[in-house]
């Protein structure tokens, strides 16, 4: 009973934090487009903060750079349980065009923190990001909340 009430609450209001760990800003711009009236993220009960302490979902953009290797773990630890991590764009998955020979990016991001979902594209369309968050987010958070610690 208590759990199902918690599920409803967790599913209906998702708080998102965008973490740019050294990308080109393309995916961040697409995330900002989600807040525009056309896509209107908040009509689905998703709120964007720039504070990992109140986030349920971390939207990860950018290939992981030298400075972000440590910070990524710190940001991840600050987010309260239950939390999921979504990699937006190709960079957190493979490093994309920055992962050249002799380059200093440390992709994929899953080497540092557990990544639950990935959205490919360089950058992905806002509608693709929205679809992915809606498809994965609510249920994943509800499931994560029920896990035994």
């Amino acid at each position, binding site marked *: 009973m208590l759990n199902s009430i918690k599920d409803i609450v967790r599913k209906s209001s998702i708080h998102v934090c965008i973490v740019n760990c050294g990308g080109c800003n393309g995916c961040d711009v697409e995330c900002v487009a989600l807040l525009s009236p*056309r*896509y*209107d993220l908040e*009509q689905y009960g998703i709120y964007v903060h720039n504070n990992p302490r109140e986030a349920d979902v971390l939207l990860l953009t950018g290939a992981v750079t030298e400075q972000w290797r440590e910070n990524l773990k710190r940001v991840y630890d600050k987010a309260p349980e239950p939390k999921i991590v979504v990699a937006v764009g*190709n960079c957190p*998955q*493979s*490093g*994309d*065009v920055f*992962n*050249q*020979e002799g380059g200093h990016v440390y992709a994929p991001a899953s080497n540092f923190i557990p990544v639950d979902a*990935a959205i*490919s*594209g*360089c950058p992905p*369309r806002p*509608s*693709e990001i*929205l*679809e992915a968050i*809606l498809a994965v987010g609510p249920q994943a958070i509800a499931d994560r909340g029920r896990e035994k610690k």
Partner: protein
Amino acid sequence: MSSLIWYIYDFARKAWADGFTNAHSRSELAEKPDRFRDFPTVNKQYCIGCGACTVSCPSPNAIKIVREKDDETGEGMTFPVINPGACIRCGFCAEVCPTDPKTLECGENHLIHPEFNIIPSKRQYIIDDYLCIKCKKCMKKCPVDAISIVNDKLQVDQLKCIACGECVDVCPVNGAMKAVFVENLQDQKDLILLTVNYLEDYINSKEEDLRALQKDRLLQYDLPLDGIWDEALKIIPDDEISFEIISNAVNRLKIRIIDWDSSKCEKCQLCVPECPTKCISFDEENDTIVRDKDRCLRCSICYQTCPFSVIKYFIAKFSLENDRTIHITVKASNLNGELLME
């Protein structure tokens, strides 16, 4: 309390109710635009394993060429595999793919179509070097500096041109700066031929008027364009382009009309050897002179030769304005008058 009243008032508005009911649904938002370039699709069977796609790819991990295991049916196929986690959807792989049909297909790509113009304009702006007086007004007016001097001639750089049309407005010489339709040249020729034939047939059908026409007098007709408009739209199904081509052609057109009154003919056969295209011949069986209209040049030599005024020679001019009526003016040629004066 006042805020509560305000809320009730706000939600009771029609605009709010409309906005609430017409809100975008999820499926509409997920639609991709028509020209969207998505991840490449691979048609394995066409691949020749050249590796051009992997070389052109700007992302290091996006394409790998793999080969299937050999089995009893023969060698395994070689083909590229796209990793969507690294592909940036640039379409370079599809562009360089040398096979025909392409192994890799990736949306609409501008370099695959050499005629691609980023501006959706049907016109191409070109300078007629023969008419251009090199006043450079268009160069100064051009907002993107697309016009430059190359070898003492003004030229439009088609890659820079944004098809704004300001150069045509500013050009002081009529016709030196042209905005032409480049896509359908053969259709345009067909359209002009159709118009000219229609006009000539119409004037030839007014045989009695032509024969009664005095010197120094004009014949005037108004011919509606609608007579050929349906056929014209079959050739080029675009109102704007068709009308512009027809009006351009008609306004410059000058047709020479030959009227052949065989009742006056005395069969002297003087015109037969004079005709430069041999389109006049003598039919011995029926004892008549035959003129092949299609080969006739309208050069007027027969008219000048004939001693019995069988042949009459007229000049027709036309104008077509926005009222969709072709105004025709026909006058008798003054060639004979000049000859008599001498």
